[in-house]
């Protein structure tokens, strides 16, 4: 039973990070309709940038903020150079451009930082774990979760209360109406990519703190896909719930199924789950169901 609760707790903590990355994904999809398969590489870039700042001697929080700034610039550049020209193209074209981007980014990251595992040195979070009664949680997980939740709250507030956030919501809701009241759609697309880059960067940094940073963190970023499918592609609460659910499920599978299917069950389980889930409820828990007409 203790194992069960500990697995769940760790799952929720990691799931918080997934939720943060998934939020960035959902944002891009809601605002510009781009189904982004490069999310894993966005997490990689953010993580490596903040690691680079951190190992140059910048303290952790400023390093994170600097990587946010870099992510903001990169996001706008990516949108302007690649995605801006594709407005109105078929969905497959846009998806494949994001696949191309993912290879491009991955190659660049590997060129600059090579493929060895790197760690945040000295460790950012203290090593001794927290204890809540019988449940033991590493401090890394706890603080990552706290940071992820704080950022989630900031992002949600941004959408609800600021002028820019409202403009983005309006565009997501009805692009034509938003254009007619003077919102610049191009600005909103660029902002969506910038925010996605920033969210993914923070998520990647936190993931890199847990297990060390290498290319497989990019794979963790790919886990947002099961998360957003579970929650529904265009639902922000869905992304949060989906991220946490995928984190919990992954850890439960790792704890209980590993003895029956030795090996990589922890990595495969979310995707297997996604394939089965798509058969029964393709629009997710809170996604909009599309009714198609000829």
């Amino acid at each position, binding site marked *: 039973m203790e194992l069960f609760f500990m697995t769940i707790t760790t799952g929720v903590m990691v799931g918080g990070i997934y939720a943060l990355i998934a939020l960035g994904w959902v944002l891009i999809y809601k605002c510009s309709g781009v189904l982004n398969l490069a999310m894993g590489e966005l997490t990689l870039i953010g993580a490596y940038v903040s690691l680079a700042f951190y190992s140059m001697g910048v303290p952790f929080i400023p390093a994170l903020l600097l990587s946010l700034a870099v992510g903001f610039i990169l996001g706008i550049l990516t949108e302007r150079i*690649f995605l801006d020209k594709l407005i109105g193209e078929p969905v497959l074209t846009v998806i494949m451009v994001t696949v191309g981007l993912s290879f491009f980014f991955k190659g660049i990251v590997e060129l600059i930082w090579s493929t060895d595992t790197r760690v945040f040195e000295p460790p950012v979070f203290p090593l001794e774990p927290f204890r809540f009664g019988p449940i033991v949680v590493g401090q890394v997980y706890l603080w990552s979760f706290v940071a992820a939740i704080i950022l989630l709250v900031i992002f949600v507030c941004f959408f609800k209360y600021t002028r820019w956030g409202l403009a983005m919501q309006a565009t997501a809701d009805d692009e034509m109406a938003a254009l007619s009241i003077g919102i610049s759609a191009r600005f909103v697309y660029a902002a969506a990519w910038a925010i996605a880059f920033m969210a993914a960067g923070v998520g990647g940094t936190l993931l890199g703190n847990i297990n060390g940073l290498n290319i497989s963190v990019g794979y963790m970023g790919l886990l947002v896909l099961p998360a957003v499918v579970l929650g529904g592609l265009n639902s922000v609460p869905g992304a949060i719930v989906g991220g946490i659910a995928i984190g919990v499920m992954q850890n439960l599978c790792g704890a209980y199924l590993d003895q029956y299917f030795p090996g990589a069950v922890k990595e495969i389980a979310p*995707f297997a789950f*996604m394939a089965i889930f798509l058969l029964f409820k393709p629009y997710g828990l809170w996604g909009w169901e599309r009714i198609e007409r000829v």
Partner: protein
Amino acid sequence: MATTFLPCGVYHENYKQDQAWWQTKFIKSKMFLLFISLFFIIPWISDTYWLSIANLIGYTVLGALGVQLLIGFCGQVTLGHAAFLAVGAYVSTLLVLEFPWPALLVEWGLAYPLSILISAIAAGFWCVLFGLPSARVKGFYLILTTMAAQFITVDFVITQYVSQIGGRGQAFSLPPGTIKVGPWVIDSDIKVYYMMIVLVILCVVGLVNLLRSRVGRAWVAIRDNDISAEVMGINIIKYKLLAFFVAGFIGGIAGAVWISNLAAISPEHFPWFLSLWLVGVVLIGGAGSIHGTIFGSIFMVVVMELLQMAVIPLADTYPKLLVDFLFIKESAFGLAICVFLIFEPNGLAYRWWQAKNYFNLWPFSY
């Protein structure tokens, strides 16, 4: 892709001419020249290095044909085709190594050809299994399912379970002499080349003819608008699954042939990168065109080889480049996909079609 115009002054007088595959004498002689050069001139003039590149091109064509069928002709996007290549390769290897073939078949060299056929059918059914969600979902959701196919098949089933058969650990090595087709032992690039070229021609001819038939027209109808296709009385689930079967079948052939070129196969030969590479080949060549598959394969393989050739002389001054070549290749591939999709969305086949029409209509482009 629109049809090619006939040259000036050539008219069809009956349906037979209209339906013919090679419609003019010029095309016939062109195809004849192509066969001559494929079977005699290319093996004659190229050394081992270029032959191995030709084999790589053949493998890419075979792998990408299935992707082309699914993406370009049936509208079902797949990002996990390497899984079906892997199934083909592994089934064929296991059959060759482990199956108790009757001595007669082995002597006649029929074991490997039979294993190619069986592995192609196995890969076809495996592909249908992951195509089943296409009955309910499409577009992005189907992409996610095929991605799941890649991870489940290669990273889980093959790495964890299939690789353990026979206690060989990670890689299955093929002892020299096991791959035998008829009286010939496939042990050199030139033999692989001939086997590859025969299979590529068979697959291309088979697929093109399939696309001219009722089945192919049903696929194209589903691609263009699946709801109207259903209204017209096409059983879309049946035809979608058939498309998945044929795509997996060709993928299985590709995988099974490729083992003759490898000393050992392991799951690392079929990464997710290969799946995306095949899709990239199709998109760069032009979706919805068999020509495009072949042009795309030639283009991508040759460009990557040229890139490598450019890197090797530079490696004397910058030794790090040699180590990093894989990463350069990866980002060059990504950038190539982006650039082609943004600036040349119809692919290389479209330019080919334009050039052909220009010369056909010259001097009177009415």
